[in-house]
Protein backbone atom coordinates (compact mmCIF):
# COMPACT_ATOMS: atom_id res chain seq x y z
CA UNK A 1 0.00 0.00 0.00
CA UNK A 2 1.11 3.51 -0.76
CA UNK A 3 2.05 5.48 2.34
CA UNK A 4 1.50 9.22 2.24
CA UNK A 5 2.60 11.13 5.31
CA UNK A 6 0.90 14.53 5.27
CA UNK A 7 1.25 15.56 8.87
CA UNK A 8 4.49 17.52 8.72
CA UNK A 9 3.13 20.20 11.03
CA UNK A 10 2.88 17.55 13.74
CA UNK A 11 6.39 16.27 13.19
CA UNK A 12 8.85 15.51 10.42
CA UNK A 13 11.13 12.58 9.84
CA UNK A 14 14.79 13.17 10.58
CA UNK A 15 16.51 13.93 7.27
CA UNK A 16 19.04 11.16 6.54
CA UNK A 17 21.79 13.78 6.28
CA UNK A 18 20.82 15.03 9.72
CA UNK A 19 20.99 11.48 11.07
CA UNK A 20 24.41 11.08 9.55
CA UNK A 21 25.61 14.24 11.31
CA UNK A 22 24.21 13.10 14.66
CA UNK A 23 25.54 9.57 14.65
CA UNK A 24 29.04 10.13 16.04
CA UNK A 25 27.67 11.92 19.09
CA UNK A 26 25.97 8.96 20.73
CA UNK A 27 28.63 6.36 21.37
CA UNK A 28 31.83 7.90 20.06
CA UNK A 29 32.07 11.63 20.73
CA UNK A 30 29.92 11.31 23.79
CA UNK A 31 31.80 13.71 26.06
CA UNK A 32 29.97 16.22 28.22
CA UNK A 33 30.52 19.65 26.66
CA UNK A 34 31.19 21.06 30.12
CA UNK A 35 34.20 18.82 30.61
CA UNK A 36 37.66 20.22 30.08
CA UNK A 37 39.54 17.51 28.27
CA UNK A 38 40.01 17.53 24.53
CA UNK A 39 37.67 14.62 23.99
CA UNK A 40 34.71 16.48 25.48
CA UNK A 41 35.68 19.71 23.81
CA UNK A 42 34.94 18.05 20.46
CA UNK A 43 31.33 17.80 21.55
CA UNK A 44 31.40 21.40 22.68
CA UNK A 45 32.78 22.52 19.36
CA UNK A 46 30.13 20.63 17.39
CA UNK A 47 27.48 22.20 19.56
CA UNK A 48 28.78 25.68 18.93
CA UNK A 49 28.87 25.05 15.21
CA UNK A 50 25.24 24.01 15.39
CA UNK A 51 24.46 27.22 17.22
CA UNK A 52 26.06 29.20 14.39
CA UNK A 53 23.90 27.40 11.87
CA UNK A 54 20.70 28.17 13.75
CA UNK A 55 21.80 31.78 14.11
CA UNK A 56 22.53 32.01 10.39
CA UNK A 57 19.10 30.71 9.52
CA UNK A 58 17.34 33.44 11.52
CA UNK A 59 19.92 36.19 11.03
CA UNK A 60 20.90 36.46 14.69
CA UNK A 61 24.21 36.25 16.44
CA UNK A 62 25.00 32.82 17.81
CA UNK A 63 25.29 34.09 21.37
CA UNK A 64 21.59 34.92 21.18
CA UNK A 65 20.56 31.31 20.53
CA UNK A 66 19.65 29.25 23.60
CA UNK A 67 19.13 25.54 23.14
CA UNK A 68 16.11 23.95 24.82
CA UNK A 69 14.26 20.65 24.68
CA UNK A 70 11.76 21.85 22.07
CA UNK A 71 9.21 24.39 20.98
CA UNK A 72 7.04 24.02 24.05
CA UNK A 73 9.90 24.65 26.44
CA UNK A 74 11.07 27.63 24.38
CA UNK A 75 7.59 29.16 24.49
CA UNK A 76 7.41 28.62 28.25
CA UNK A 77 10.86 30.10 28.77
CA UNK A 78 10.03 33.16 26.68
CA UNK A 79 6.70 33.87 28.31
CA UNK A 80 7.29 32.97 31.93
CA UNK A 81 10.89 34.13 31.72
CA UNK A 82 9.99 37.64 30.55
CA UNK A 83 7.01 37.81 32.91
CA UNK A 84 9.01 36.93 36.01
CA UNK A 85 11.98 39.10 35.10
CA UNK A 86 9.88 42.16 34.35
CA UNK A 87 7.06 41.96 36.83
CA UNK A 88 8.19 45.13 38.53
CA UNK A 89 7.67 46.93 35.24
CA UNK A 90 4.20 45.56 34.65
CA UNK A 91 1.86 42.62 34.72
CA UNK A 92 0.13 42.78 31.36
CA UNK A 93 0.70 40.44 28.44
CA UNK A 94 -0.92 40.50 25.01
CA UNK A 95 -1.27 37.38 22.91
CA UNK A 96 -3.76 36.01 20.41
CA UNK A 97 -6.56 33.52 20.80
CA UNK A 98 -5.07 31.21 18.16
CA UNK A 99 -1.66 30.63 19.71
CA UNK A 100 -0.45 27.11 20.30
CA UNK A 101 -1.22 25.70 23.75
CA UNK A 102 2.48 26.03 24.49
CA UNK A 103 1.85 29.79 24.57
CA UNK A 104 -1.74 29.89 25.82
CA UNK A 105 -1.29 27.61 28.79
CA UNK A 106 1.74 29.41 30.21
CA UNK A 107 -0.29 32.62 29.86
CA UNK A 108 -3.21 31.07 31.71
CA UNK A 109 -0.85 29.91 34.44
CA UNK A 110 0.58 33.42 34.73
CA UNK A 111 -2.94 34.73 35.18
CA UNK A 112 -3.20 32.53 38.24
CA UNK A 113 0.06 34.05 39.44
CA UNK A 114 -1.38 37.56 39.24
CA UNK A 115 -0.54 38.58 35.69
CA UNK A 116 -3.18 39.90 33.29
CA UNK A 117 -3.45 38.59 29.75
CA UNK A 118 -5.33 39.94 26.75
CA UNK A 119 -6.19 37.29 24.17
CA UNK A 120 -6.72 39.11 20.89
CA UNK A 121 -9.47 37.82 18.60
CA UNK A 122 -8.67 37.06 14.96
CA UNK A 123 -10.66 37.53 11.77
CA UNK A 124 -12.29 34.68 9.89
CA UNK A 125 -9.00 33.81 8.17
CA UNK A 126 -7.03 33.83 11.40
CA UNK A 127 -5.36 37.22 11.11
CA UNK A 128 -4.64 39.31 14.18
CA UNK A 129 -5.58 42.95 13.72
CA UNK A 130 -2.60 45.22 14.23
CA UNK A 131 -4.87 48.14 15.10
CA UNK A 132 -6.71 46.15 17.70
CA UNK A 133 -3.42 45.02 19.16
CA UNK A 134 -2.22 48.58 19.39
CA UNK A 135 -5.40 49.58 21.21
CA UNK A 136 -4.86 46.91 23.80
CA UNK A 137 -1.39 48.08 24.76
CA UNK A 138 -1.31 49.46 28.28
CA UNK A 139 1.32 51.25 30.29
CA UNK A 140 2.03 48.06 32.16
CA UNK A 141 2.23 45.80 29.08
CA UNK A 142 5.53 43.94 29.30
CA UNK A 143 5.19 41.33 26.58
CA UNK A 144 3.46 40.72 23.28
CA UNK A 145 3.46 37.16 21.96
CA UNK A 146 2.01 36.52 18.52
CA UNK A 147 2.83 33.42 16.52
CA UNK A 148 4.53 33.73 13.16
CA UNK A 149 2.25 31.24 11.47
CA UNK A 150 -0.58 29.18 12.79
CA UNK A 151 -0.05 25.44 12.92
CA UNK A 152 -3.64 24.50 12.13
CA UNK A 153 -4.77 26.87 9.42
CA UNK A 154 -1.45 28.21 8.13
CA UNK A 155 -2.17 31.92 8.57
CA UNK A 156 1.02 34.00 8.50
CA UNK A 157 0.63 36.91 10.90
CA UNK A 158 1.86 40.48 10.25
CA UNK A 159 4.87 40.05 12.53
CA UNK A 160 7.02 42.87 11.12
CA UNK A 161 4.31 45.44 11.76
CA UNK A 162 3.60 44.16 15.24
CA UNK A 163 7.32 44.10 15.95
CA UNK A 164 7.63 47.72 14.90
CA UNK A 165 4.90 48.75 17.31
CA UNK A 166 6.38 46.72 20.14
CA UNK A 167 9.76 48.29 19.52
CA UNK A 168 8.35 51.81 19.49
CA UNK A 169 6.53 51.19 22.72
CA UNK A 170 9.47 49.46 24.38
CA UNK A 171 7.60 46.18 24.91
CA UNK A 172 9.25 42.80 24.55
CA UNK A 173 7.97 40.88 21.54
CA UNK A 174 8.00 37.12 21.25
CA UNK A 175 6.96 35.09 18.26
CA UNK A 176 6.40 31.36 18.09
CA UNK A 177 8.04 30.51 14.78
CA UNK A 178 7.85 26.75 15.15
CA UNK A 179 5.90 26.40 11.91
CA UNK A 180 7.96 28.85 9.88
CA UNK A 181 11.66 28.47 10.66
CA UNK A 182 13.16 26.36 7.93
CA UNK A 183 10.05 26.72 5.79
CA UNK A 184 9.84 30.40 4.95
CA UNK A 185 12.40 33.17 5.58
CA UNK A 186 12.72 34.23 9.19
CA UNK A 187 14.86 37.23 10.07
CA UNK A 188 14.84 38.45 13.65
CA UNK A 189 16.05 41.88 12.60
CA UNK A 190 13.42 42.46 9.95
CA UNK A 191 10.74 41.05 12.19
CA UNK A 192 11.76 43.24 15.12
CA UNK A 193 11.40 40.38 17.56
CA UNK A 194 13.15 40.02 20.90
CA UNK A 195 12.35 36.35 21.38
CA UNK A 196 11.62 33.65 18.84
CA UNK A 197 10.77 29.99 19.33
CA UNK A 198 12.13 27.20 17.12
CA UNK A 199 11.57 23.45 17.28
CA UNK A 200 13.92 20.90 15.76
CA UNK A 201 11.46 18.14 14.91
CA UNK A 202 9.29 20.40 12.77
CA UNK A 203 12.16 21.02 10.35
CA UNK A 204 13.58 17.54 9.78
CA UNK A 205 15.71 17.64 12.91
CA UNK A 206 15.22 15.28 15.85
CA UNK A 207 12.53 15.46 18.50
CA UNK A 208 13.57 16.76 21.91
CA UNK A 209 15.54 19.80 20.84
CA UNK A 210 14.59 23.38 20.16
CA UNK A 211 15.90 26.86 20.60
CA UNK A 212 14.88 30.23 21.85
CA UNK A 213 16.34 33.29 20.23
CA UNK A 214 16.85 35.89 22.97
CA UNK A 215 17.92 39.32 21.78
CA UNK A 216 20.95 40.64 23.61
CA UNK A 217 19.91 42.71 26.59
CA UNK A 218 16.51 41.05 27.04
CA UNK A 219 15.68 40.62 30.71
CA UNK A 220 14.60 37.04 31.22
CA UNK A 221 14.51 34.59 34.12
CA UNK A 222 15.49 30.96 33.47
CA UNK A 223 12.84 28.27 33.63
CA UNK A 224 15.33 25.52 34.42
CA UNK A 225 18.02 26.43 36.95
CA UNK A 226 21.17 24.43 37.58
CA UNK A 227 24.70 24.15 36.32
CA UNK A 228 24.55 27.40 34.38
CA UNK A 229 24.56 26.03 30.85
CA UNK A 230 23.42 28.14 27.89
CA UNK A 231 24.65 31.41 29.37
CA UNK A 232 22.81 30.60 32.57
CA UNK A 233 19.47 30.72 30.79
CA UNK A 234 18.90 26.98 30.48
CA UNK A 235 20.73 24.52 32.65
CA UNK A 236 21.13 20.80 32.07
CA UNK A 237 23.62 18.64 30.21
CA UNK A 238 23.14 19.52 26.59
CA UNK A 239 21.49 17.11 24.18
CA UNK A 240 24.60 17.13 22.00
CA UNK A 241 23.48 14.72 19.30
CA UNK A 242 20.12 16.45 19.12
CA UNK A 243 21.72 19.87 18.89
CA UNK A 244 24.13 18.73 16.19
CA UNK A 245 21.21 17.29 14.22
CA UNK A 246 19.20 20.45 14.72
CA UNK A 247 22.15 22.47 13.41
CA UNK A 248 22.46 20.26 10.38
CA UNK A 249 18.73 20.62 9.73
CA UNK A 250 19.14 24.40 9.86
CA UNK A 251 22.02 24.27 7.43
CA UNK A 252 19.98 22.17 5.00
CA UNK A 253 16.93 24.41 5.38
CA UNK A 254 18.94 27.54 4.69
CA UNK A 255 20.07 25.99 1.44
CA UNK A 256 16.95 24.21 0.27
CA UNK A 257 14.02 26.04 1.80
CA UNK A 258 13.24 28.49 -1.00
CA UNK A 259 13.06 25.88 -3.69
CA UNK A 260 11.13 23.49 -1.48
CA UNK A 261 8.58 26.16 -0.52
CA UNK A 262 7.86 26.85 -4.18
CA UNK A 263 7.36 23.17 -4.82
CA UNK A 264 5.06 22.77 -1.84
CA UNK A 265 2.92 25.76 -2.76
CA UNK A 266 2.07 24.01 -6.02
CA UNK A 267 1.19 20.76 -4.30
CA UNK A 268 -0.75 22.64 -1.67
CA UNK A 269 -2.85 24.56 -4.15
CA UNK A 270 -3.59 21.49 -6.18
CA UNK A 271 -4.67 19.65 -3.07
CA UNK A 272 -6.86 22.52 -1.93
CA UNK A 273 -8.56 22.81 -5.29
CA UNK A 274 -9.08 19.10 -5.59
CA UNK A 275 -10.48 18.71 -2.09
CA UNK A 276 -12.85 21.64 -2.50
CA UNK A 277 -14.49 19.81 -5.40
CA UNK A 278 -16.06 17.57 -2.79
CA UNK A 279 -19.40 19.17 -2.03
CA UNK A 280 -20.16 20.81 1.29
CA UNK A 281 -16.51 21.53 1.95
CA UNK A 282 -14.62 24.75 2.57
CA UNK A 283 -11.07 25.99 3.18
CA UNK A 284 -10.07 27.00 6.68
CA UNK A 285 -7.53 29.84 6.78
CA UNK A 286 -6.51 32.28 4.05
CA UNK A 287 -5.58 31.67 0.43
CA UNK A 288 -2.77 34.22 0.58
CA UNK A 289 -0.27 34.70 3.39
CA UNK A 290 -0.63 31.03 4.11
CA UNK A 291 2.11 28.52 4.99
CA UNK A 292 3.36 26.82 1.82
CA UNK A 293 2.58 23.40 3.21
CA UNK A 294 -0.76 23.84 4.96
CA UNK A 295 -4.11 22.59 3.70
CA UNK A 296 -7.09 22.66 6.04
CA UNK A 297 -10.46 21.68 4.68
CA UNK A 298 -13.77 21.47 6.48
CA UNK A 299 -16.31 18.78 5.53
CA UNK A 300 -19.88 19.00 6.66
CA UNK A 301 -21.84 16.16 8.29
CA UNK A 302 -18.86 14.05 9.26
CA UNK A 303 -16.36 13.97 12.06
CA UNK A 304 -12.60 14.33 11.82
CA UNK A 305 -11.37 11.46 13.91
CA UNK A 306 -13.19 8.95 11.77
CA UNK A 307 -11.87 10.74 8.69
CA UNK A 308 -8.33 10.34 10.02
CA UNK A 309 -8.84 6.64 10.64
CA UNK A 310 -10.43 6.07 7.27
CA UNK A 311 -7.51 7.77 5.58
CA UNK A 312 -5.15 5.73 7.76
CA UNK A 313 -6.60 2.56 6.24
CA UNK A 314 -5.49 3.88 2.89
CA UNK A 315 -2.03 4.76 4.20
CA UNK A 316 -2.70 8.50 4.36
CA UNK A 317 -1.65 10.23 7.56
CA UNK A 318 -3.40 13.50 8.29
CA UNK A 319 -4.73 15.50 11.21
CA UNK A 320 -7.91 17.12 12.48
CA UNK A 321 -9.09 19.81 14.86
CA UNK A 322 -11.96 17.62 15.96
CA UNK A 323 -12.62 17.45 19.67
CA UNK A 324 -12.91 13.68 19.45
CA UNK A 325 -9.27 13.46 18.53
CA UNK A 326 -8.02 15.61 21.37
CA UNK A 327 -7.12 14.69 24.93
CA UNK A 328 -9.49 17.33 26.26
CA UNK A 329 -12.50 16.55 24.02
CA UNK A 330 -12.63 20.26 23.26
CA UNK A 331 -12.83 21.34 19.62
CA UNK A 332 -9.89 23.24 18.15
CA UNK A 333 -9.66 26.68 19.73
CA UNK A 334 -8.27 27.95 16.44
CA UNK A 335 -11.24 26.85 14.35
CA UNK A 336 -13.55 28.22 17.00
CA UNK A 337 -11.68 31.54 16.97
CA UNK A 338 -12.14 31.95 13.22
CA UNK A 339 -15.87 31.56 13.74
CA UNK A 340 -16.68 27.96 12.91
CA UNK A 341 -19.74 26.51 14.60
CA UNK A 342 -18.83 23.64 16.94
CA UNK A 343 -20.39 21.03 14.66
CA UNK A 344 -18.29 22.39 11.81
CA UNK A 345 -15.03 22.25 13.75
CA UNK A 346 -15.45 18.48 14.01
CA UNK A 347 -15.22 17.95 10.30
CA UNK A 348 -11.89 19.68 9.73
CA UNK A 349 -9.06 17.86 8.06
CA UNK A 350 -5.49 19.12 7.96
CA UNK A 351 -2.88 17.98 5.48
CA UNK A 352 0.60 19.42 5.96
CA UNK A 353 2.99 18.68 3.17
CA UNK A 354 6.70 18.07 3.30
CA UNK A 355 9.85 16.93 1.62
CA UNK A 356 8.67 13.39 0.97
CA UNK A 357 5.46 14.40 -0.73
CA UNK A 358 5.17 14.28 -4.48
CA UNK A 359 2.60 15.06 -7.14
CA UNK A 360 1.66 11.40 -7.05
CA UNK A 361 0.89 11.70 -3.35
CA UNK A 362 -1.50 14.53 -4.03
CA UNK A 363 -3.12 12.47 -6.79
CA UNK A 364 -3.51 9.57 -4.42
CA UNK A 365 -5.09 11.68 -1.70
CA UNK A 366 -7.47 13.23 -4.20
CA UNK A 367 -8.43 9.79 -5.34
CA UNK A 368 -9.04 8.40 -1.85
CA UNK A 369 -10.53 11.42 -0.12
CA UNK A 370 -13.86 11.72 -1.98
CA UNK A 371 -14.66 8.07 -1.29
CA UNK A 372 -13.82 8.39 2.34
CA UNK A 373 -15.95 11.47 2.79
CA UNK A 374 -18.75 9.84 0.86
CA UNK A 375 -18.64 6.67 2.95
CA UNK A 376 -18.75 8.56 6.24
CA UNK A 377 -21.56 10.74 5.00
CA UNK A 378 -23.48 7.59 4.19
CA UNK A 379 -23.09 6.55 7.81
CA UNK A 380 -24.03 10.01 9.09
CA UNK A 381 -27.65 10.89 9.86
CA UNK A 382 -27.13 14.40 8.48
CA UNK A 383 -27.59 14.11 4.78
CA UNK A 384 -28.43 17.69 4.07
CA UNK A 385 -27.88 19.84 7.09
CA UNK A 386 -26.97 19.81 10.71
CA UNK A 387 -30.12 21.82 11.18
CA UNK A 388 -32.09 18.67 10.47
CA UNK A 389 -30.99 17.36 13.82
CA UNK A 390 -32.12 20.41 15.70
CA UNK A 391 -35.41 20.36 13.81
CA UNK A 392 -35.94 16.73 14.59
CA UNK A 393 -35.16 17.37 18.18
CA UNK A 394 -37.59 20.26 18.34
CA UNK A 395 -40.33 18.15 16.67
CA UNK A 396 -39.80 15.31 19.09
CA UNK A 397 -40.10 17.65 21.99
CA UNK A 398 -43.24 19.40 20.76
CA UNK A 399 -44.63 15.92 20.15
CA UNK A 400 -44.40 15.11 23.82
CA UNK A 401 -46.70 17.93 24.75
Amino acid at each position, binding site marked *: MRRVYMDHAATTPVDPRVMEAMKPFFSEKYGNPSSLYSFAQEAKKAMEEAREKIADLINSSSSEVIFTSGGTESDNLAIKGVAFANKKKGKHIITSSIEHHAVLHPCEWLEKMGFEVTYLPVDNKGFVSVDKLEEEIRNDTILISIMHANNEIGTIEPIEEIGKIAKERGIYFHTDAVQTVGKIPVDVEKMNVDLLTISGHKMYGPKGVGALYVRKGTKITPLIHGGGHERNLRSGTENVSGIVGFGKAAELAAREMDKEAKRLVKLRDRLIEGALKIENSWLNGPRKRRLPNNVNIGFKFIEGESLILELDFSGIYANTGSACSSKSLKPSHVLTAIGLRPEETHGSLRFTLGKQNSDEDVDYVLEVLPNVVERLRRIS*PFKKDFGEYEEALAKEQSHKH
Partner: protein
Amino acid sequence: MYSDKLIDHFRNPRNMGRMENPDGIGKVGNPVCGDVMYLYIKIKDNKIDDIKFETFGCAAAIGTSSVITEMAKGKTLDEALKITKKDVVDAVGGLPPIKMHCSVLAADALRAAIEDYRKKKGSGNDKPKDS
Protein backbone atom coordinates in the same frame (compact mmCIF):
# COMPACT_ATOMS: atom_id res chain seq x y z
CA MET B 1 -5.70 2.73 20.43
CA TYR B 2 -8.73 0.79 19.21
CA SER B 3 -9.25 -2.95 19.30
CA ASP B 4 -9.38 -4.95 16.08
CA LYS B 5 -13.01 -5.68 16.85
CA LEU B 6 -13.91 -2.02 17.02
CA ILE B 7 -11.97 -1.29 13.87
CA ASP B 8 -13.81 -4.07 12.12
CA HIS B 9 -17.17 -2.58 13.10
CA PHE B 10 -16.00 0.86 12.02
CA ARG B 11 -14.85 -0.36 8.66
CA ASN B 12 -17.67 -2.81 8.07
CA PRO B 13 -20.57 -1.39 9.98
CA ARG B 14 -23.47 -3.80 10.42
CA ASN B 15 -27.05 -2.61 9.97
CA MET B 16 -25.99 0.80 8.79
CA GLY B 17 -28.40 3.20 7.11
CA ARG B 18 -31.73 4.87 7.44
CA MET B 19 -34.89 2.84 8.02
CA GLU B 20 -38.15 3.77 6.41
CA ASN B 21 -41.12 3.73 8.78
CA PRO B 22 -39.35 2.49 11.89
CA ASP B 23 -41.37 1.51 14.91
CA GLY B 24 -39.04 3.46 17.15
CA ILE B 25 -36.24 5.93 16.75
CA GLY B 26 -33.59 6.77 19.31
CA LYS B 27 -31.72 9.99 18.70
CA VAL B 28 -28.96 10.77 21.15
CA GLY B 29 -25.87 12.94 21.31
CA ASN B 30 -25.30 16.37 20.01
CA PRO B 31 -23.52 17.58 16.91
CA VAL B 32 -21.94 20.32 19.02
CA CYS B 33 -20.07 17.66 20.97
CA GLY B 34 -19.25 15.67 17.89
CA ASP B 35 -21.31 12.50 18.37
CA VAL B 36 -24.85 11.88 17.24
CA MET B 37 -26.47 8.45 16.95
CA TYR B 38 -29.80 7.64 15.36
CA LEU B 39 -31.03 4.15 16.07
CA TYR B 40 -34.06 2.78 14.21
CA ILE B 41 -35.93 -0.34 15.26
CA LYS B 42 -38.68 -2.51 13.83
CA ILE B 43 -40.53 -4.66 16.31
CA LYS B 44 -42.23 -7.97 15.73
CA ASP B 45 -43.65 -10.18 18.50
CA ASN B 46 -42.14 -7.85 21.05
CA LYS B 47 -38.74 -8.61 19.58
CA ILE B 48 -36.34 -6.39 17.68
CA ASP B 49 -36.90 -7.68 14.22
CA ASP B 50 -34.81 -5.14 12.42
CA ILE B 51 -32.46 -2.42 13.53
CA LYS B 52 -30.42 0.23 11.78
CA PHE B 53 -28.21 3.09 12.75
CA GLU B 54 -26.82 6.33 11.44
CA THR B 55 -23.96 7.98 13.29
CA PHE B 56 -22.09 11.24 13.09
CA GLY B 57 -18.95 10.86 15.16
CA CYS B 58 -15.64 9.25 15.76
CA ALA B 59 -14.66 5.66 15.07
CA ALA B 60 -15.67 4.65 18.57
CA ALA B 61 -19.12 6.17 18.09
CA ILE B 62 -19.59 4.41 14.77
CA GLY B 63 -18.14 1.12 16.02
CA THR B 64 -20.26 1.00 19.16
CA SER B 65 -23.39 1.90 17.15
CA SER B 66 -22.71 -0.95 14.83
CA VAL B 67 -22.02 -3.44 17.58
CA ILE B 68 -25.12 -2.60 19.56
CA THR B 69 -27.32 -3.23 16.54
CA GLU B 70 -25.87 -6.72 16.32
CA MET B 71 -26.34 -7.26 20.03
CA ALA B 72 -29.93 -6.05 20.05
CA LYS B 73 -31.20 -7.75 16.93
CA GLY B 74 -33.54 -10.60 17.72
CA LYS B 75 -33.74 -9.76 21.40
CA THR B 76 -36.99 -9.05 23.20
CA LEU B 77 -37.40 -5.46 24.26
CA ASP B 78 -36.79 -6.34 27.88
CA GLU B 79 -33.65 -8.25 27.02
CA ALA B 80 -32.46 -5.37 24.86
CA LEU B 81 -33.02 -2.90 27.66
CA LYS B 82 -30.64 -4.91 29.81
CA ILE B 83 -27.70 -4.21 27.50
CA THR B 84 -25.33 -2.03 29.52
CA LYS B 85 -22.53 0.23 28.46
CA LYS B 86 -20.17 -2.38 29.85
CA ASP B 87 -21.67 -5.00 27.54
CA VAL B 88 -21.03 -2.68 24.64
CA VAL B 89 -17.45 -2.01 25.71
CA ASP B 90 -16.84 -5.74 26.06
CA ALA B 91 -18.42 -6.43 22.69
CA VAL B 92 -16.05 -4.04 20.91
CA GLY B 93 -13.07 -5.46 22.77
CA GLY B 94 -12.54 -2.47 25.06
CA LEU B 95 -12.37 1.27 24.54
CA PRO B 96 -9.76 3.90 25.48
CA PRO B 97 -10.83 5.72 28.69
CA ILE B 98 -11.49 8.92 26.82
CA LYS B 99 -13.93 7.11 24.50
CA MET B 100 -16.03 5.45 27.17
CA HIS B 101 -18.85 7.94 26.66
CA CYS B 102 -19.45 6.44 23.21
CA SER B 103 -20.55 3.17 24.78
CA VAL B 104 -22.94 5.10 27.01
CA LEU B 105 -24.31 6.83 23.93
CA ALA B 106 -24.94 3.54 22.13
CA ALA B 107 -26.78 2.03 25.08
CA ASP B 108 -28.76 5.24 25.47
CA ALA B 109 -29.71 5.24 21.79
CA LEU B 110 -31.11 1.75 22.03
CA ARG B 111 -33.03 2.61 25.16
CA ALA B 112 -34.38 5.76 23.52
CA ALA B 113 -35.53 3.83 20.47
CA ILE B 114 -37.36 1.29 22.61
CA GLU B 115 -38.95 4.03 24.68
CA ASP B 116 -39.98 5.78 21.51
CA TYR B 117 -41.61 2.60 20.27
CA ARG B 118 -43.41 2.04 23.57
CA LYS B 119 -44.55 5.61 23.74
CA LYS B 120 -45.93 5.51 20.23
CA LYS B 121 -47.59 2.21 20.85
CA GLY B 122 -49.05 3.34 24.15
CA SER B 123 -50.31 6.64 22.80
CA GLY B 124 -51.62 4.94 19.72
CA ASN B 125 -50.22 7.70 17.58
CA ASP B 126 -48.60 5.13 15.40
CA LYS B 127 -50.26 1.78 15.32
CA PRO B 128 -47.77 -1.00 16.03
CA LYS B 129 -47.24 -3.24 13.09
CA ASP B 130 -47.67 -6.91 13.89
CA SER B 131 -47.07 -8.62 10.63
